[in-house]
């Protein structure tokens, strides 16, 4: 079944296509980063597993191919929606398992989005396509809500200290940003509560739909842009961006 049979020429179709393009960017970055980082990453495999030059080269080729497939999704999102997403999912899954350790949150979100978008046009009935799309939406809601609740349980997050400590790390922040967060306790606490409220409220805004959901999604994108720029976690922006677009598309179907 072709993607357009289910999606048609609608706002929903356009949003899903956009989600596929953004997922393509996430794949492109994931694949190319893996290809570049593999020689270093291979050292961290469990003792006894192969880390020879041939193994590394073979996996670098696979990771580069994954990146190129992502680039193809960006140019033509129908490739992703017509099953290409499933191929990409299998490769991402294999690389995450083969490389040990498993991937991070950006990889998980990417796999979730690819699973949903990949089966969207392949299942034999529109009802099943809708089911797949809803699964993505539910998983995106769970991801945000759970992240928010986990933060709320921690005192350092409620006081705002955790954000300041994170950006004060040479891994996740610049000295300039760290100084601002450490020096302005109220601002830091406000930021922490903004992040927690945004994450916990995801299911509420999904139920509300319409402009409130769009406004919430815009704020979420702003948060991810901030995380990408300040903490250097760019892959999360693309993977969760694709998840957010899928969320909006699913809500538009109702």
């Amino acid at each position, binding site marked *: 079944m072709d993607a357009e049979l289910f999606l048609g020429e609608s706002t929903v179709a356009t949003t899903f296509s956009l989600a596929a393009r953004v997922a393509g960017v996430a794949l492109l*970055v994931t694949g190319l*980063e*893996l290809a570049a*980082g593999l020689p*270093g*990453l291979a*050292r*961290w495999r*469990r*003792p006894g597993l192969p*880390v*020879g*030059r041939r193994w590394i080269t073979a996996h670098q080729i696979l990771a580069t191919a994954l990146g190129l497939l992502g680039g193809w999704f960006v140019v033509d999102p129908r490739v992703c929606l017509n*099953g290409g997403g*499933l191929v990409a*999912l299998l490769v991402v899954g294999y690389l995450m398992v083969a*490389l040990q*350790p498993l*991937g*991070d*949150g950006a990889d998980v979100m990417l796999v979730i989005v690819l*699973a*949903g978008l*990949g*089966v969207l046009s*392949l*299942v034999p009935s529109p009802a*099943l396509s809708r*089911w*797949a799309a809803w*699964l993505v939406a*539910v*998983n995106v809601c*769970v991801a945000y809500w*759970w*992240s928010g*609740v*986990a*933060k709320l349980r*921690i005192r350092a997050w409620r006081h705002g200290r*955790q954000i300041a*400590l*994170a950006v*004060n*790390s*040479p*891994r996740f*922040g*610049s*000295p300039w940003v*760290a*100084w601002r967060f*450490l020096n302005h306790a109220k601002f830091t606490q406000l930021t922490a509560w903004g992040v927690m409220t945004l994450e916990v409220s995801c299911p509420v805004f999904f139920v509300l739909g319409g402009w409130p959901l769009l406004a919430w999604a815009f704020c979420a994108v702003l948060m991810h842009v901030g995380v*990408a*720029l300040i903490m*250097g*976690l*760019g*892959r999360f*922006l693309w993977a969760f961006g694709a998840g957010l677009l899928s969320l909006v598309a699913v809500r538009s179907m109702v």
Partner: protein
Amino acid sequence: MIGTVLAWCFLLLFSAYTAAAIASFAPPVDRWMRRQRLGAATLRSVLPFWGLFAQRFGMFDLDLSYRRLRGPLDGARAHPEPEAWLPLTDNRWRWWCWLWRPGQRADQASQILAYRLISGGAAANRDMRGDPAYQRITAVVRRTTSRQTAAGHEMSPSGDYVVFRLALSRGYWTTVPTQTIFVSAPEPAGVGRPARPGLEARHGR
């Protein structure tokens, strides 16, 4: 036809995963999932745990570095030449990291192993050589210091030893200096060689 069958399989798996992710909110289900073994892992650890974004364990500041000891190491009489400490991963924040950060994954692995090392009692001056995290880190250090031959085999200079240390960094703005909380025993540098008997673990600062 193959595509449809594949799509069905994925849809079923995706549905099962979603159901499990939602069910794991319930404490009894969560406990049950933690008990179910899938090889070395548990069913719960296979399911992505979004709560990790809260970083409750503060895994931001654990730095692993290593150095080589050149020459013989023979009890108290030996005087091996230590080289400078080198970081095991390089993942410092730079302005382009939002776009491109290939070192992130290896650093993530180093943070997890370093955390496991502390959980295993590294900070309490225990002998850690039986600890899986210690062995994994030692293997990484060996691979890092090894040279690859043209045939793809790894070779290390014989007679050399490697040591790694775990330091706790307090970040950019602090009056407290970086604190070394664990130093490993000298381990033979060769890939896959057993630890030399008779060498006592040197723990401390």
